[in-house]
């Protein structure tokens, strides 16, 4: 907690005014409680559009919780309540009356383990568009092809679209899940350790894919793998628990990835990225 003033000053360096980037998501004084347990404490950060922002930090520091707060996946857990704001394109998604379904369409998510539905490859991708009322076959065909191409999976599966999505390899399944998320044309894509269950080759493919996707989407990724964060991201946020008793996750430092990894302003960040703990 003693580092808080520093943190907020480093947060300001990533503001849109300084770098000239359009801001996509703004998290402002955001705290999250599971019952009485405060899992996130007063997190503030601005996430720029069409960039890859990585959230790193030791286990249990609230990285995933913060990520899931951006499309309200935390609503699935009982007794969650929040303070502060998560602003998506100028609208607070935690404001009363905000439409969860619309937020989740605009903010897609890719999970840690590939989780294709037990349906065909085609139906996996078409599931989202169908939800939003696209039912004509040729439209769906177009969306499915476009999404699979964007996810760099089309060439591998174009002849077996009716096969089960579960029959693909782990890396292909994960790209199928990315295609499924892309099919509803989100603006932001949240990735919760998308490559941690994959082998190095499949991981590389996912990372290359992320680079091509950031042209069109804003990507926020949680990762345990610091090399991955350094390789793929433009901005990096480092989170930690404030102290071992309360175990509240706080944002320690946030800035351009090169700065976080080469000249961190905070001592804890330096210790973490140089591998002295965590």
């Amino acid at each position, binding site marked *: 907690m003693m580092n808080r003033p520093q943190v907020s000053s480093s947060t300001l360096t990533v503001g849109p005014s300084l770098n000239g980037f359009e801001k996509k998501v703004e998290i402002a004084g955001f705290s999250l409680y599971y019952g009485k347990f405060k899992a996130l404490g007063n997190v503030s950060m601005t996430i720029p559009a069409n960039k890859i922002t990585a959230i790193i930090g030791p286990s249990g520091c609230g990285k995933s919780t913060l990520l899931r707060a951006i499309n309200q996946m935390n609503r699935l857990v009982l007794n969650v309540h929040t303070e502060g704001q998560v602003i998506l394109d100028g609208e607070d998604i935690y404001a009363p009356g905000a439409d969860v379904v619309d937020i989740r369409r605009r903010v*897609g998510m890719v999970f840690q383990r590939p989780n294709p539905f037990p349906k065909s490859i085609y139906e996996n991708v078409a599931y989202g568009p169908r939800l939003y009322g696209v039912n004509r076959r040729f439209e769906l065909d177009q969306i499915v092809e476009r999404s699979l191409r964007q996810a760099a999976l089309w060439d591998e599966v174009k002849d077996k679209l009716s096969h089960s999505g579960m*029959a693909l390899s782990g890396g292909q399944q994960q790209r199928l*899940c990315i295609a*499924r998320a892309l099919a509803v044309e989100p603006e932001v894509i949240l990735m919760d350790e998308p490559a941690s269950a994959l082998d190095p080759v499949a991981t590389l493919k996912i990372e290359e894919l992320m680079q091509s996707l950031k042209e069109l989407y804003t990507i926020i990724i949680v990762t345990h793998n610091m090399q991955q964060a350094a390789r793929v991201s433009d901005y990096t946020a480092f989170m930690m628990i404030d102290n071992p008793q309360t175990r509240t996750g706080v944002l320690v430092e946030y800035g351009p990835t090169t700065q976080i990894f080469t000249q961190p302003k905070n001592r804890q960040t330096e210790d973490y990225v140089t591998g002295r703990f965590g």
Partner: protein
Amino acid sequence: MNPALSLSEVHSTHAAGNRIKYSRLHYQRRKYTNWIMLSLTGLLTLLALIPLFWIVGYVIYKGGQYINLSFFTKMPLPLGMSGGGVLHAIEGTLILTLLSALFAIPPGVLAAFYAAYKPNTPLGIVVRFGTDVLAGVPSIVIGLFIYALIVKVQHHYSALAGGVALAILMLPTIIRTTEEMLKLVPQTLREASLALGSPEWKTAISVILPAASNGVVTGVLLGIARASGETAPLLFTALGNENYEIGRIVNSGVSAHQNVFTVLGKIFNQPVDSLPLTLWKYAQQPYPERINQAWAAALVLMLLVLVVNILARIWMQIRTSRMQGR
């Protein structure tokens, strides 16, 4: 091992061969213990399997002699005459099973969804506790309850009352199995659907239920297998009816120009027999033909449950392999 021994002393003890002597003795004892325990488990397993094979074998032996095509296709003949079949009971069993499945599956599956996804809410706790209690209620009590609730009100026995009684019997099995199967569906699958903006109900129907369908079908079939073998609740509800023949009801309805609902009413709203009920009645009668037919009915009942089980397994096998893309 003596803790006072230093590491080098341990090595020298080994070298002297002391430990090898000791361990061989120990090893022999372990080997014999293992052999004895293995024989014991094998023997008791065989013992446990004896009733199964004995029952199946004896029913096939006794019933197989009296089973023929007309047993399935003919109505019963008057007492004392040999020949005739149990078509009325087979049709009655099908009607009762159909009705009970119709009454039990929708509320059972929905209650399972509730119990699986809201386990710690008051209603969720009530569902789970209530299901356990219901599973322990003797089937004859359920029959009596339906007698008071439906038969007394309608002033006659009916397939409808029997179907409701059997549905109540099936409910706990369906709810419990379905709930367990729904819990096995990975949470991430549900999250994946919700993260696309799908509402809960749509996620439940189009993602979770298909993913759990094998288990749900198993639960339903277990319920049906249990219900189709029940006799006690039918004594007060379906009663039995040796003149029940769907073909004849339909034909007479058509020739009398009755509308569909009248005919359906006649099918579902009059007393019917079922295989276990027929078995129970025939086995008590002092006519050798009827006793023999009771054995044959037992065989048919057993085969019916077996066939349902086998078909379900084949169907599940196909579905599972298709889902996993093998």
